[in-house]
Each structure stands twice: as structure tokens, then as C-alpha cells.
């Protein structure tokens, strides 16, 4: 399988490239990246012409489009094994590919929990057969995600886990979290923390404030997140462990992480999700359970702070926290609906709004969605250097996309962005040389 992506604007921060290039792909790898712009390049034969003569070359015209390294999502829920009515590895990776992702890190809250090597192996074998992108499993921090004893980090790592997290269930015991961060130093893998003080969160179902009171919904204060962000940064400082903070949703968390990074004494990285920089708690006003997510949607001032945190580098990554649910689970009582947004297929469009708004440059967007995630999980991706896996995505900045959950590749149609007009959309995803073209 050979392909030529021609005349697109390649943005590859690790190579320092932001210009029109042609990219040769062969055997699932990047063969060559040839810049179009310079006089020297112009002297050489037009690669398109050359390619057209070569049999077996698939030529992809990327004129007027961005060509970027395949996106890496640090935070998805593929739901398999155990919750196949919500999503499967097949449909989840299909949604990822559609959304421009060539790798996804899947959280361990399946049934059974991915807290041992055999579950990790099951996920990876399933992904090898049915996957449309690379699957990088995240193992549980504690057995059964019960927050009682550490899971087998080394055995899970050998099986292919790239990080550890009890996502959805914070490790409330500070001593155990200390041990996790200490023990993880054996492997140089990050511990990903879902920061939520469960007692303070008090089973809240939305952000606490006037709106929660006037809707009669239990509120969770921003402090339930911030206290745990501060705790985990302190523990990272104490232990020297690598801490990655999942789904940052509040201005206070951004400030705490900013201060920690300035002091430079803890090894900490952080992600946020498109919904936290795009919408506020107002989205739940009509009791729309599609806007129920944990941590909850916050206020405009939080949205602004998160955008600023992305701009100034406090927040390293944009992850989706793709959390598909069955329609029947989201239809009904708001209190009883599970939390989560099906996010893989709207992430690029929502992130491109940040570019349109001048919050991020295209280079920064690629850093947040490919380069930094690759660094955090150490999978060697995030660049189109010759020899690298041919994982890339072509984004058409002139093609607007009207979000219609009915068209999602994901089984999860739970999105608060239905009907939104997003400014750009992935049109081609190439994973290990395999070309997916989206209509």
C-alpha cells in the first residue's frame, strides 16, 4: 500500500514544519516528507506527476487543507468488555478514526475492570482484529477500582498498558495515592487522576451555584475538584511520581496547576476536554441529560480560564473523555442518567473553534492533540518524521460540519452539541498507511 498526500499544509511541530508538503507513505510508514515551497524543491520533479506514473500509489489531494500527525486521545471509554450496548472496541475506534484520532487511550472502568494483564490482553487482541485505530489501554490504579489495594502495574505494563487510572472513581485514600505515585516510578508511566473529593461532591449532578439551586439539582462545588488537584500535586511532589490530571474543569484547578508548574517541583501534566472550553452549566437548564458529565460543566469564567490555560501551556492536552451511553440511559430522570458525553466525533471541530477564536495556533492545536499526548504516554507518535508510523489526519478548514448525532460512528449519541455548526472537520484519516476517507 502506497499513498501520496500532496500539496497539503503540513503542521509537524516536532520537525518544526509548517508549510506545504507532499508526504510519501509506504508500508504503513512515512517514507518522505517533501517541502513544496523552496526554490530547490521546485527544481525537483513534481512528485504528483511521479506518483501518478507509479502503479499502486493512491494520490490524495490535500490542497488548501491541513495535514497533521494522527491525533492521540488520552481519555476515552470504549466500554468493552462489559458494556457493549454503549460502545464496542469496533465502534469506538471507528468513531475515533472518524474524528481524526489514530490512537486512543481507553479507561479501565469496563466489566471486568482492566486491572490485570488478561483484561489488557483481551482489549488489545480485540483491537487488533476489529480496531480502526491504535488502542492504548490504561490499567486501573487499584484492584477493581475499589481504592483498596494497588493493581499489578508491572504485569499490566508488560501486557501493553500505557498509564494507570481509576478514572470515574477517585482514589480517596491519600496514602494509597501516595503509594501509587511511588510505585509507578518503576515504570515511568503516568498516574492519571480523576480529581474529585467524593464526600464534598455529595452526589452532585451538576455544578453548584444559583442554577443548581433553581433547577433543584444537587450541585458539586468547584472545590471538590480543586482540593484533589492540590492533594495529588502535593503527593507528586512528595513521591517524584508522574501525575497527569484528567479533565480539568475549573478556573481554580488551572491556577493550582499553573502554580505547580511554575515552581517546577512536581512532574505534572494536565488535560481538559472540548466541553469544558466550549459550553457552560447553562446547557443543563432544560434538564438535558446529554449535558450531564463528570466533572460537571461549569461557568463562563471557568471556560475562559481553561482557554487561557490551553493558550499559556498550563494545560498540555485536549482529550475527549469520550463516554458513550445508550439512549435509554440518557432519556429520563436527570438525576438517574449516567454522566458522560460522546466526544470523539466533535473534538476536532470544537478545537478548531479555539483556532478560529485566536486561542490556539494550528501548531499549538497539534501539540495539544498529538505531540503532548504522545509524550505523556510515550508511544512515539505525534510526528510525521520519515520512518514513523503513517498516522495522519487531513483537516479541511473550509468545510463546516453540522453536528448530527444520528450520523455518529459511535454507538453513543449522547452529545450536547447536536445541531452545532463546527468550522472544520477531518476529511481523511490515515492509520498505519490505511486510508479512511470521510464523506
Amino acid at each position, binding site marked *: 500500500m502506497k499513498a501520496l498526500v500532496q500539496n497539503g499544509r503540513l503542521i509537524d511541530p516536532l520537525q518544526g514544519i509548517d508549510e506545504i508538503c507532499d508526504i510519501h507513505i509506504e508500508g504503513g510508514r512515512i517514507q518522505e516528507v517533501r517541502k513544496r515551497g523552496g526554490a530547490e524543491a521546485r527544481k525537483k520533479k513534481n512528485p504528483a506527476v511521479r506518483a501518478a506514473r507509479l502503479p499502486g500509489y493512491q494520490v490524495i489531494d490535500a490542497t488548501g487543507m491541513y495535514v497533521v500527525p494522527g491525533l492521540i486521545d488520552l481519555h476515552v471509554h470504549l466500554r468493552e468488555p462489559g458494556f457493549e450496548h454503549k460502545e464496542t472496541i469496533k465502534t469506538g475506534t471507528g468513531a475515533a478514526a472518524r474524528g481524526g484520532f489514530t490512537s486512543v487511550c481507553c479507561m479501565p472502568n469496563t466489566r471486568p475492570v482492566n486491572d490485570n494483564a488478561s483484561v489488557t490482553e483481551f482489549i488489545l487482541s480485540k483491537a487488533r482484529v476489529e480496531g480502526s485505530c491504535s488502542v492504548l489501554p490504561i490499567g486501573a490504579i487499584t484492584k477493581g477500582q475499589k481504592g483498596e489495594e494497588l493493581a499489578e502495574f508491572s504485569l499490566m505494563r508488560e501486557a501493553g498498558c500505557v498509564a494507570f487510572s481509576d478514572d470515574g472513581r477517585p482514589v480517596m485514600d491519600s496514602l494509597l495515592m501516595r503509594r501509587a505515585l511511588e510505585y509507578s516510578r518503576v515504570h515511568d508511566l503516568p498516574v492519571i487522576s480523576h480529581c474529585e473529593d467524593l464526600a464534598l461532591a455529595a452526589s452532585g449532578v451538576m455544578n453548584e*451555584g*444559583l442554577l443548581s*439551586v*433553581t*433547577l*433543584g*439539582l444537587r450541585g458539586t462545588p468547584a472545590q471538590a475538584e480543586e482540593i484533589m488537584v492540590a492533594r495529588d500535586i502535593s503527593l507528586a511532589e512528595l513521591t517524584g511520581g508522574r501525575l497527569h490530571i484528567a479533565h480539568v474543569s475549573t478556573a481554580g484547578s488551572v491556577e493550582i496547576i499553573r502554580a505547580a508548574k511554575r515552581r517546577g517541583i512536581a512532574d505534572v501534566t494536565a488535560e481538559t476536554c472540548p466541553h469544558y472550553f466550549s459550553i457552560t452549566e447553562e446547557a443543563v437548564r*432544560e*434538564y438535558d441529560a446529554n449535558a450531564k458529565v463528570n466533572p460537571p460543566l461549569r461557568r463562563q469564567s471557568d471556560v475562559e480560564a481553561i482557554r487561557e490555560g490551553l493558550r499559556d501551556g498550563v494545560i498540555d492536552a485536549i482529550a475527549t473523555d469520550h463516554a458513550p451511553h445508550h439512549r*435509554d440511559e440518557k*432519556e*429520563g*430522570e*436527570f*438525576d*438517574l442518567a449516567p454522566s458522560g458525553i460522546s466526544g470523539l466525533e466533535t473534538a476536532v471541530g470544537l478545537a478548531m473553534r479555539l483556532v478560529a477564536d485566536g486561542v490556539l495556533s494550528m501548531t499549538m492545536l497539534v501539540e495539544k492533540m498529538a505531540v503532548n499526548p504522545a509524550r505523556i504516554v510515550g508511544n512515539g507518535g505525534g510526528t510525521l518524521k520519515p520512518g514513523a508510523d503513517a498516522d495522519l489526519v487531513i483537516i479541511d478548514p473550509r468545510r463546516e460540519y453540522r453536528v448530527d448525532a444520528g450520523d455518529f460512528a459511535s454507538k453513543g449519541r449522547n452529545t450536547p452539541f447536536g445541531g452545532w455548526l463546527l468550522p472544520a472537520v477531518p476529511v481523511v484519516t490515515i492509520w498505519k498507511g490505511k486510508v479512511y476517507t470521510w464523506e
Partner: protein
Amino acid sequence: MGLKTKDLVGIKGLDRDDIELILETASGFKDILGRDIKKVPALRGRTTVNLFYEPSTRTRTSFELAAKRLSTDVINISVSTSSIVKGETLQDTALTVQALGADFIIVRHACSGVPHFLAPRLKASVVNAGDGTNEHPTQALLDLFTIREKRGKIEGLDVVIVGDILHSRVAKSNIYALKKLGARVRLIGPPTLVPPALGELGVEIFSDMDRGLEDADIIMMLRIQMERQDKGFFPSTVEYFRNWGLTKRRMGRAKKNAVVMHPGPMNRGVEIASDVADGKHSVILDQVTNGLAVRMAVLYLLGGVRG
């Protein structure tokens, strides 16, 4: 004449004219309730279903009687809370009820927003009989009706609401309704149970009951749920009564002709002393009678919308 909407899900969605119309209509029905023959044929042939997911005697009985006085057929369905989690979905139950030919579905549910979920999905008129900690609109309407009956007006009155504002759907609906009709509203209670965010709605908040009661025209007491003590909202009912119980002595702080209200059922000796509950300021039983007239008005006016 009728309301602009098919449903009554909350006071938040009503404007002043809607409220005035309901109160005026209720006044006519109250006259009918004073007659020997208390039944009118206004909604003959219609069917009312009381769909109660929470136990209730007062509100359910009041709606049932109101519906019967208007000559509708009435069915009571009590769904135990355990089957919410496991059994039939909310939507399926509601559609089933509608398929039985219900014109009015009176719904009470422990989860906020349930009437708002059902209303657009059903052809029947949905009336909120209390949803979680959100609203209890007919209670607020009957409270307004009672205030106006006792004091001749609502605008400009100083109304205090005392107790567990955070969890009280009655308090929420009353705050919205009283503000819409131009009353001044004060909230009194332990800071654990009075969310400061409500100050943004232009109400005053007090933790000191004596100060909060100063020159009040209307005193609305709320029922204190005993389980709030277990959750640490206050240390004991004895201490609660000491700080926020309505006693004869405290009544001296309010206006001489102050009116004492309570949505019931009361915890005597916890939020209200018996001599106050049974005393001359108390209009608690008038509230019950007026509830009937107000609920008749609501059903009648919604029936008008459906034609």
C-alpha cells in the same frame, strides 16, 4: 380564557398575568366550594391521572378532589420508588398512562425536572405536583391566594420563609411567585440549608431568626425533614427549634397582624410551636381549603388550552 401553555411545570415559566388569571379563577371556584352542591360539569368526560412516584396524602387528595369537583374521572397510580431504578422507564409509564386516555397527568417525583421531561413528550396536560427539590407550583399558587385573601394584596408585603430552603420545592416556587407579584422576600434558616446563591435573585438572607422576622407581614414555615440531621445540616432538632423554631415570643418580632403559614405536614415542636400553629395568626387550614380552589382553577384553565 386559558393559560398560554399546555402544562404547568413550574412558576418559573409563568408570567404575572398567568398567575393573576389563576388566582382570579380560583376565587370563583372558592365560591362554588361554599355551596351545598360543590360539583360543576366543566370538565365532564375528561380523565385525570395522579401519577405519584413519591408518597403523598395531602397533595394527591387535593388534586383528586379538585378533579372530581370538575367532573373528570380520576385514577390514582402510585409507583414505588424502587421500580424507578429497575422497572419501566419514566417515558414508558407516562405513554402508557396517556394511552389509557388521560387528559391531565398530575405528576409527583423525587427527581427534579421530571415534569419538564414529560411535558413535551405527551399530548396530555402535565401538572407538576412536586418534583424533587425544584418546584411545587400549585402550593405556591395556593399560598399566594391565601395571602391575598388575608391581606388583600401581595405587592409590597414582607414575606419571610423559614427553614430548609435548599431542599424545599415549596420555598423555591414561592420565591419565584412572590417576586413576580412584587413582594419582598426574606429567607431565614441555618446557613447549611439556605444557599447564598439565592441572594442573586434579590432576596435577603438571615441566619438570625429574630432579625429576619422584624416587621414581617407573612411567615411561611417549612417542614424540617428529620434525615437532614443525619446528614449534618444541623446538630439536633432541639437546637434547630432553639434557633429557628417559631414561638409565641418570636411572633412579637413580626407585625401584629402577621399571618403564619405552613404547607404541612407540620413537625410540632421542631419548626413550629403548637400554640403558634393553632393560634390566631395561623391560616394553615385555610391553605388546605384554598388548595382545592387553586387546583380546580389550574385544571380548568389547562383544559381550556386543550379545547
